[in-house]
């Protein structure tokens, strides 16, 4: 490798292979247009090409690929949800993730760590037992453990949390993992591109053209593209896209902030989450602690991060790990989370023919990247949503058939 680097350094050309072609001019029309070059949009493009042979597809990204919430989450993958529908769906995602490095021929640093959701109160313990039973019923490895087992897995953790919030137990979830999130976007982009999908960065959608309730094209910063199938996979920008087709949704945007510490030698094997302390933490493969918190308390369309957030988060982290008090925070950021009232996504068809929605990913989108891509590709190819995502349909709100996942959100929101 050092020799290879030297060769690249001395070469006047750029011999490193590109992950995907540098597309600049879109064609006049495509079989499908995907708005949003994050993990979800690129995965949908990949599975459209791979599973259904639909390769005349454009992915339009207003920034650069993976630069939105795909690159802003805390990379946790898990399936220990509360509803059977949710557990089945996220379990299918975990299974796809497990083989994804090989499938995409790119090392995603997918690392199965085990995942503890700490409970500091009796009511939290009750939710953990509930989730464990639903998980077991569906065949997902989750069970309730006591403080001794948590201490054994993570001896550095102060079980009393500095006396502030003693830990009574936890929901242990064996398949809980972390992955390199930007590589997930690049891997899907690379393979989708190889099969013919065209990816346009710095290309913004400015309008969606409909005729008689059907999609006929999109206006973009690079001109008009005609198509009769459009997928919106834009997370925090969803309300701006749905406004273009006069579609009402329950989605409200709240910032979600996260930060990383300076790198340390590996000491934290597991992923730890505390709902009461509003903290989730894992150690990345380069040694940084990746730490996330709860949503910011009010609607705000911005990715700016705040001192309030770091102060709150580090207070709670040092309750759990007092020895971290001298460790520096080196980066902090925010993503725009598209929150739904039941903390479940909104996926599938909409009242506008040819307009498909993959949204409402709030604080739980990264883990669903492969399965959302696969199921949205099926929805677009067959113009019918598969059973796996039926309980995430937009019309569930009018039917009062919500899919209540709030109890499985990583931290109390």
């Amino acid at each position: 490798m050092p020799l290879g680097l030297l060769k690249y350094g001395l070469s006047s050309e750029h011999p490193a292979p590109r992950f995907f072609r540098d597309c600049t001019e879109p064609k006049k029309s495509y079989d499908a247009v995907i708005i949003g070059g994050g993990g979800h949009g690129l995965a949908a493009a990949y599975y459209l090409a791979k599973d259904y042979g639909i390769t005349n597809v454009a992915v339009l990204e207003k920034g650069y690929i993976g630069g939105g919430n795909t690159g802003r989450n805390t990379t946790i993958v898990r399936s220990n949800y509360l509803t059977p529908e949710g557990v089945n769906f996220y379990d299918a995602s975990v299974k796809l993730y497990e083989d994804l490095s090989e499938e995409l021929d790119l090392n995603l640093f997918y690392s199965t760590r085990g995942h503890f959701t700490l409970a500091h109160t009796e009511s939290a313990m009750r939710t953990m037992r509930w989730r464990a039973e639903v998980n077991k019923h569906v065949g997902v490895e989750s069970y309730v453990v006591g403080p001794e087992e948590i201490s054994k897995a993570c001896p550095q953790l102060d079980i009393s949390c500095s006396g502030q919030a003693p830990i009574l137990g936890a929901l242990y979830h064996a398949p809980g993992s972390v992955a390199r999130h930007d590589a997930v976007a690049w891997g899907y982009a690379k393979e989708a591109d190889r099969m013919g999908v065209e990816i346009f960065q710095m290309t913004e959608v400015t309008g969606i053209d409909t005729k008689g309730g059907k999609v006929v094209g999109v206006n973009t910063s690079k001109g008009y593209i005609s198509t009769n199938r459009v997928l919106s996979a834009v997370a925090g920008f969803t309300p701006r896209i749905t406004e273009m087709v006069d579609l009402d949704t329950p989605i409200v945007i709240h910032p979600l902030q996260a930060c990383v510490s300076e790198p340390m030698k590996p000491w934290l094997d597991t992923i730890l989450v505390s709902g009461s302390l509003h903290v989730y933490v894992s150690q990345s493969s380069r040694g940084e602690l990746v730490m996330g918190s709860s949503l910011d308390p009010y609607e705000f369309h911005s990715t700016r991060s705040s001192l309030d957030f770091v102060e709150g988060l580090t207070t709670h982290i040092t309750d759990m790990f007092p020895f971290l008090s001298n460790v520096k925070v080196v980066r902090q950021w925010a993503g725009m989370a598209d929150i739904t009232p039941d903390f479940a996504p909104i996926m599938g068809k909409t009242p506008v023919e040819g307009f498909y929605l993959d949204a409402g990913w709030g604080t739980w989108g990264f883990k669903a990247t492969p399965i959302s891509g696969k199921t949205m590709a099926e929805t677009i190819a067959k113009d019918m949503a598969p059973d796996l995502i039926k309980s995430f349909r937009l019309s569930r709100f009018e039917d009062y058939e919500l899919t209540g996942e709030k109890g499985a959100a990583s931290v109390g929101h």
Partner: protein
Amino acid sequence: MKLLECPVNGIRPMSEFTYGGEYRNMPNPDTCSDSEWAAYVHYRNGAPGVKKEWWYHAPSGTWFIAERNTMTDKVSRTYLLGQEEAK
């Protein structure tokens, strides 16, 4: 520290306030259709812009209206409901 102006207590730290969501008009439940009611219960105007919002000053128990740009977080004015003109 972020600040917000309570129409009763003046400028106070943001930590004293709670967000109550966008101000919305309730349709008449006796005359509206089921889908209008479902839309009122669930759907929200999620697009960014200047919105009329409910805010609550917790120490004094005051609910009031703030007009805030959800893109810039800039509050243009705050007033008690129904006292918009007086301000």
